């Protein structure tokens, strides 16, 4: 049981302060993504209220970018929602790990679920040495709250700024959308399997674009990930490295 290894000694005040400083800087860093998201959502003709609702309620970056990207490219509702859901599925796996760490009860469980994202899980895992589990818990809550606040404020700033700019194409904002996706993909390309899946999915999406309704080629590209992921892993050391989730 988790209690058995809990707190042989309490973390010091400076250790706790360090976690809080990390959480604050992670929040500020994600603010930049939030500004981009707000601007790109407006570029895809979402209203300020819809853009803000996405950051408050969906609160998981890649899903939000994908949803506005697909709708902006004239994709259907099912493709946009399906892609956003699939990109959000990894949070369920983070939650599994956080459930064991946080053991939240009642309403705290709902709040913990909403705050379960890359950054909060990342800071919790980084501070979880099995000795100071309260530091890991502090990392989760501090990063989760810090990112939530910064992300939502930044979203509004980005959306208001993009609305004020007028035609987003004049400022190249439509061309910034694939760049943002590439930046989100970048840390996940650390191994050969992942790079192969990325290339395969890209080729499949391009090949399907002329024949399917917009949005569906993206949604269907997930098949490449499912097929490769279910394939029995090769045992050789050269290519046997498991794809790992990109945590900050």
């Amino acid at each position, binding site marked *: 049981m988790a209690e058995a290894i809990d707190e042989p000694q309490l973390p010091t005040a400076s250790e706790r302060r360090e976690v809080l400083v990390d959480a604050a800087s992670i929040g500020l860093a994600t603010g930049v*993504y939030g500004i981009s998201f707000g601007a790109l959502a407006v570029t895809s003709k979402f209203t300020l209220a819809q853009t803000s609702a996405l950051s408050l309620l969906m609160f998981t970056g890649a899903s939000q970018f994908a949803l506005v990207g697909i709708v902006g490219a004239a994709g259907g509702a099912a493709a946009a929602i399906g892609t956003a859901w699939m*990109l959000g599925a990894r949070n369920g796996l983070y*939650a599994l790990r956080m459930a064991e760490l946080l053991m939240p009860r009642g309403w705290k469980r709902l709040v913990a679920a909403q705050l379960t994202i890359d950054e909060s899980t990342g800071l919790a895992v980084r501070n979880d040495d099995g000795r100071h589990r309260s530091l890991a818990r502090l990392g989760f809550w501090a990063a989760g709250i810090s990112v939530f606040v910064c992300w939502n404020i930044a979203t509004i700033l980005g959306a208001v700024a993009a609305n004020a700019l007028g035609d987003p194409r004049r400022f190249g904002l439509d061309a910034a959308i694939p760049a943002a996706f590439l930046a989100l993909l970048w840390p996940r390309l650390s191994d050969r399997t992942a790079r192969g*899946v990325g290339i395969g999915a890209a080729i499949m999406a391009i090949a399907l674009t002329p024949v399917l309704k917009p949005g569906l*080629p993206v949604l269907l590209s997930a098949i490449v990930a499912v097929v490769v992921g279910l394939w029995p892993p090769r045992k050789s050391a050269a290519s046997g490295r498991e*794809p790992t989730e990109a945590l900050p």
Partner: protein
Amino acid sequence: MSSRWMIVLVGAFGTFVLKAIGYVLPESWLAHPKVQRVSALIPVALLSALIVVNTFAIKQHLQIDARLAALIVAFIALRLKAPFVVVVVLAAATAALLRYFLNWA
């Protein structure tokens, strides 16, 4: 209610349920190595597809325009370890300048 609002609310409901699943489901269901492998690869596939579609497609039509130049600049910036904001701003600036000075699409 507009279809945009429907997409926002249904989309957000689903991503919340996915987050909550980990706090409710028994660990053995999700801890399976194949589930872990597939769920790590799905973002790679979807993001790759999103990159090419948003670069080359206009609805069902494929074309090469300023968006590709912007993506190449973003790629170089990422190779040089530029932070997110720099990558996005450089990409936007590339497309904006090509359109303004060279009249690219």
